[in-house]
Each structure stands twice: as structure tokens, then as C-alpha cells.
């Protein structure tokens, strides 16, 4: 049992009150054979970047419902860069207005998902993103 597993951090930055969506995604990624580290509600960008470093994840999934994504996402990306973890693919899910998506992609986010997204699509996108640039 020593093959490479895809490790994913599912994190909720900010002050969201619930984490149903994040849990559904965590469960779906588990069923796709990934190792999902779930850290719970109300994480700061610092906590998320630190957990990503310690857990050496390939992917971070940020779930944000509060509307604070344009503040939280850039900060997480900045910290990852600071820690030397630019190779980590960052996905964002939650309530993200369409007009913010291009800006997030521009910042280096790999994918943005709203309500109604099929978990199969997320799984496929993770596989694609990692085979294009597999973790060293």
C-alpha cells in the first residue's frame, strides 16, 4: 500500500456559518480515492497555508460563501508563494459571482465552482490539473 495518493486540503476561510458543501466535496474526493484533509470552519489564510505545507498537499479546495473571496483567495495564494508552494493547485467553490471568476483565474486559481457543480467535474479537473503539472 505504498502508491502515490492525491492529497487534498479542503478548507473554509472566513466567517461562513456552515460547511455542507465542503463536506459533500470532501466525501466525493474520498470516494474518488483521494486523501482529503479537512480542517473545519473559520480558518484564516495563514492557518490554511500552514496546514497545506505540513500536509504536503497537491490540491487546496477553498470553500467560501461569505463574499470575501476577493480578499481571502489572494492572501492564500500569496502565502503559498511565500512558503515555496506555487505548485499546489487551488480550486475555489461556493458563492462566487460570475464577474469575479476571470479575476480569480488570473490570480492563479485553477478552477471555480458554484452551486450545482457535479462532483465528477471537480474530480476530473483535479486529475487533469495534476497530470499537466504533477507534484514533484
Amino acid at each position: 500500500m505504498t502508491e502515490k495518493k492525491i492529497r487534498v486540503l479542503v478548507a473554509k476561510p472566513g466567517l461562513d456559518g456552515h460547511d455542507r458543501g465542503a463536506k459533500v466535496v470532501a466525501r466525493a474526493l474520498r470516494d474518488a480515492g483521494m486523501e482529503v484533509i479537512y480542517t473545519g470552519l473559520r480558518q484564516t489564510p495563514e492557518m490554511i497555508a500552514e496546514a497545506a505545507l505540513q500536509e504536503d498537499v497537491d490540491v487546496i479546495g477553498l470553500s467560501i460563501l461569505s463574499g470575501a473571496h476577493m480578499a481571502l483567495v489572494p492572501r492564500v495564494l500569496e502565502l503559498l508563494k511565500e512558503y515555496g508552494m506555487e505548485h499546489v493547485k487551488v480550486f475555489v467553490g461556493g458563492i462566487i459571482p460570475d464577474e469575479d471568476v476571470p479575476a480569480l483565474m488570473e490570480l492563479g486559481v485553477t478552477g471555480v465552482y458554484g452551486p450545482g457543480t457535479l462532483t465528477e467535474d471537480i474530480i476530473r479537473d483535479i486529475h487533469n490539473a495534476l497530470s499537466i503539472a504533477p507534484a514533484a
Partner: protein
Amino acid sequence: MNLTTDVLAGKRLALARLLTHIENGTPEGRAALDELFPHTGRAHLIGITGAPGTGKSSLVNQLARFYRHPANGSAPRKVAVVAVDPSSPFTGGAVLGDRIRMRDLAGDPGVFIRSMASRGALGGIAIATAGVVQAFDAAGYEIILIETVGAGQAEVDIARLAHTTLVVEAPGLGDDIQAIKAGILEIADILVVNKADRPGVENTERALKNMLQLAHPTRRVFHHHGQVMMVEAPAAPQPEAQLWIPPVLRTVATEGEGIAELTEQIARHGTFLRQTGDWNRRERVRLQNELDTLLQAALVARWRATLPNGRYGEILERLVARELSPRQAVEALLAPQPSNLATP
């Protein structure tokens, strides 16, 4: 970059990367562990096991906090946490949720938490957990807290790895028959009754204490049909001072209650192990186990390489067809082949 040098220099990204190599069993991971091995053997390895929901993660959170901010004014210790959760037997995936209870430790560079999936191992820890612990030890972490998967009765591998094993119980989980069964309670160096603010804590504590009394009899006075009777314990095999009797402690991990006493007992157990020579004996047994396991794997691999192509599959087919019993299949495989008959 050289992984080993960077890990020894305290670079956290290198350590995180090394842990992944160790988990995946890569040649780089093995080579780094070989190089790091002389730097290991300094940390106090503390195992935390118990049934799901007894509060292991919360207890680990509090213990780590205490070691980082000792109440008695002693220097903070570097703490590593290895938290194991189960992998799915069907997909191999896992949700590792132990960090949720460890948020108090965020932002402290003296703490490193790593979640591990059990990846099919059934003993409560993963196969690679020992390697991960060695890496932390070499990287200078003085206290290594190893949290097992939620363990039922027989997941006792942690006792072979850790110096001090805490078995965590909570009120209301079982009657006193559970306490006299073989298995997990036998490996406890310290018994923790967590959630001690819940009703039924006295019963749980009493059941555990009675269990210990049976295991470590001393001279006892008891009442039997109204008569006071004295019973001498049978002569202990070792002198009394050499015997560790596991203490039973109450904690409320969410409130931090009982944590100072718990760390005191952990330290006392460490001192006990060193004074009695048990520390070295445990290390010796552990390393011997590791040697034997690796040796077996290497011998099987070497032997498999000498097997003529298709021979294994052929025997397996005959086994599946029930022409051979499993034991006969082994004998057939080990029997000298006409092609490479050894001279007697």
C-alpha cells in the same frame, strides 16, 4: 536540494516533502531515512489510542498546547503530531479530520501536525507511521504524539511503536466485562477517562481500577459475608519498585482539565522507563521487530525473483481449483525445481 540536510536544518517544507516520500515508500524516502537514522532515538514517543469519539484529537490538542506553554515555567518543547485516520477499504480514499480539533496549535512554528491515512493497515496505525515518526525524531521534535485511528479492541500496534501509550476511554461506552477482555486495555501505560464531566464517570473509573487490581494484585483487605479478610498477593516476579501500575486519570479535554496531571504522569513514565532500563529494552524489541519484518519482505522478494515464470500463477490456479490446500501450495512452491535443483 538535499532532503536530509534540509530536514536536519529544520526546513519545514523539506520535512513535509520527506514525509510524503516515506508514506509513498519511494527510494528517496528510504535513502533519507537511512541517512537520518543516526539522528533518531531522542524523542519521547507518546501513543494516544481509544475508541472513536472518546476525544483523542482534543486530548492531543491540549497535550501539545501544554508542552508548548508549560505551566511550571520549564522550557517549551518542540511537538510533532502524527494523526492517523482510516482509509476506505473500497476506494483507498480517506477523510482526515483530526486537525479540526487541533486549531489551537496553528501559527506555532514549534508544532508540526501531519495527518496520515491508514492505507490498508489494520493495527491502528499505517505501515509508514514508524518511518514518519523517525523523520520527526531526526528533525529535532522532542515530543511526538501519535494518534491512532479510532481503535476498538485489538488495534495494538501503537504499543510497539510508542514509549508511553495512553488509552482513552469515555463514560458510558461499555460495562466491566469490556474492561477484562484482552487487547487494548492491556497496552495502556496510562488510562485516561476523558469527558469526565459526563455522568457515569465513576463507573468507568471503577471498572478500569478493578481491572488493574486484577492485573497487579497487592495485599488487599476486603469484606466477605461481613467478615474482614486479608489476602496476600502472590509473590511478584519483579521487585515492587520495578513495576509500573498504570494510573487512571480524569480529563475534560475540551476544557483543558486534568492535562497538567496527565503530562506529569507521562513524564513519570518516561523516567520510569529510563531508570528500569525498559526504555532501551523497548527500543531493542521495536528495532528487532522492524528488522525481522524487513528481512522477511526482502527474503520473499529475493525468493520470488528465483521462481520460474508462471510457476506462482500455476500453483495459485491449483489452489483456487482446490487441488491443493494453502499449506500444500506453499510446499509445492518451496520444493526445489528441476531446473535449479540444489545439491543435497
